[in-house]
């Protein structure tokens, strides 16, 4: 049985950690400051230390230094816990060698993702890989109206592989074969309705489902959410509206690597991050993934990065905040950045304190050259 040491001065955090560690069936020991933590690590030789950054007596940074100095404790994996405001500090601490970090407040899912890297997946959680792997580029539309199917297909076929089914039964058969990442289902259909259909699909794989419903029926919305629908689109829908919900659902179900494929690339040997021209939800999801990718780029010895914002139609405050965070993290890691943006956006970005001095270019070639 593994042993996990939690070091945090807050009882709420220690209690939450204990709750979230339950599925792992491990022994948990607790310390309330860095000094106690170091002492307990020496005594208990835990398999993992969850270490808070800011604590009285001895903070997480010093404690990590102590653990790394001592032969008896230097090999113990450490995951840092940090407040939202302490992210910058973590990037710095990460250089001392940690296995990951978790931003507080955290939920079970985020916690498990990091902790499982060290302890392995909790017992009973792992399903066979083949059973849940889905194709993030495919979408299945289920509706008894041919007209709706045609409209949905037209809206989505440029960006995804579109499959269609005219009944719940037909949908199950198609789903089992193709395992599309997203399934769009009409809630009201003869024989097998959208609720029966999603229940069957959830048994077969982990795809995100989007419900189609008639405008104005609010009670159905609640019911659909409870049944597990990630989003609800009301008919008649605009092509763009359906596309946005489906793209979001696709990125929600896809693994970070799948999401990254669209937004991380390389140009002439220089890594390129592109900001999505979509709602802030995708951006919020992408930022931590970008952060992780940044750190692995730094570890691989990269010191240049192009951030491409050319495809943005407009500059929202979320985009600016995301961009600033990306540039700051890159700066902390010693990565030089150039921003590839059309002139109109450059003018706006130059008005903002954090982005006014960044090197800009209108093409990727130009951006690459400015980094030479």
């Amino acid at each position: 049985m593994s042993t996990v040491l939690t070091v945090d001065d807050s009882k709420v955090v220690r209690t939450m950690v204990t709750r979230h560690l339950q599925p792992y069936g491990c022994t948990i020991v607790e310390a309330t400051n860095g000094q106690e933590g170091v002492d307990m690590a020496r005594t208990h030789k835990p398999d993992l230390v969850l270490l808070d950054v800011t604590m009285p007596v001895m903070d997480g940074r010093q404690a990590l230094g102590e653990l790394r100095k001592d032969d008896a404790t230097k090999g113990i994996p450490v995951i840092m816990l940090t407040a939202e405001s302490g992210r910058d500090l973590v990037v710095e601490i990460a250089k001392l060698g940690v296995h990951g970090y978790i931003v507080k407040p955290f939920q079970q899912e985020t916690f498990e993702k990091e902790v499982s890297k060290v302890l392995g997946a909790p017992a009973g959680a792992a399903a066979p890989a083949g059973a849940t792997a889905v194709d993030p580029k495919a979408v299945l539309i289920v509706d008894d109206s041919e007209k709706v199917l045609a409209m949905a297909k037209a809206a989505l076929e440029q960006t995804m592989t579109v499959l269609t089914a005219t009944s719940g039964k037909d949908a199950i058969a198609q789903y089992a074969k193709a395992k599309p990442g997203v399934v769009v289902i009409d809630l009201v259909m003869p024989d097998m309705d959208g609720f029966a259909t999603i229940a069957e699909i959830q048994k077969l794989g982990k795809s995100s489902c989007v419900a189609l419903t008639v405008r104005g029926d609010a009670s159905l919305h609640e019911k659909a959410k409870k049944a597990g629908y990630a989003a609800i689109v009301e008919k008649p829908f605009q092509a763009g509206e359906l596309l946005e919900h489906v793209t979001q659902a696709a990125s929600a179900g896809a693994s970070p690597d799948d999401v990254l494929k669209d937004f991380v690339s390389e140009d002439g040997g220089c890594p390129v991050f592109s900001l999505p021209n979509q709602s802030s939800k995708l951006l919020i999801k992408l930022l931590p993934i970008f952060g992780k990718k940044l750190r692995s780029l730094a570890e691989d010895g990269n010191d240049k990065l192009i951030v491409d914002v050319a495809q943005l139609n407009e500059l929202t405050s979320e985009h600016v905040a995301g961009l600033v965070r990306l540039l700051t993290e890159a700066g902390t890691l010693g990565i030089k950045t150039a921003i590839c943006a059309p002139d109109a956006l450059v003018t706006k970005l130059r008005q903002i304190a954090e982005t006014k001095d960044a090197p800009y270019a209108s093409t990727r070639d130009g951006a690459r050259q400015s980094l030479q």
Partner: protein
Amino acid sequence: MQEALATPLRHDDLQARVRSTLARLSQTGALPSLPAAASAALALARDPEADVDKLCRVIQTDVGLSARVLRVANSAALGRRNPARKLQEAVITVGLRKTCDIMVAACAKRLYEGATARAEELWNHSLAVAVAAEELARTTRRVEVGSAFLPGLFHDVGRVAFLLADETAAEVIEGLAADGDGAKSFLEREWYGFDHAEAGAILAEDWGLALELCDAIRWHHEPSEAGAARELATILNAADAVAYKLGAGATLEPPASVTTAHLELSPEDEASLLERVQAAWDAQRDLLG
């Protein structure tokens, strides 16, 4: 977590952090939002040019709202001789501002419904506090009667946001508070970096509630800190205590910080106040069904 306590954040920074934390925790990446008709009603409540026709147009966009407003207009309390049949008549009987309150309450109820049993208890509590705040405003004349209902209704909306974001955390915090490990607001700040009153004030601000009303929400556990909103925050604090006395608390035991003491009511006044609030609360629950 000391960093959250040691350095006071500028309002903008805190606002950004509340929004980003709640969005990050929510399943959808979005903050809890009000149905469109409620936002429109809130905007109208602040609009000096609002008139019966404008309000009726908004009411008609939401299924069920028209029926509800007609029901209030024809309720015994308003004593119409002939029942109102048209929406316009009903709005005139009920009054513009009160109609806005009813619309917002009817829409806000949906935010709590069906989420969890705790959320539904919180709805009951919120409605009791809204009614109590209105009654206290009327009795004490410390604030304008019309300004108390909505902040009362939204005073704990931060807790709903916490519940919707992560039920386990909300449960752990309540458990620790009940075990004497610290006041709930302190534990919330340790976990989220801000407490439910702050989160509620920021959500209410996003939804279009007037800033002073949001400040009263922000300080409903510490009214003396509320600056210009001090009177209203005191009313909310006392209304919270009244709700507990009527068995409509948000937890089993009232937090130490809520009290009717600041209002200096005589025992007789307090007893009759409790009766009036109970009656008004029953009527509201019946109405919103």
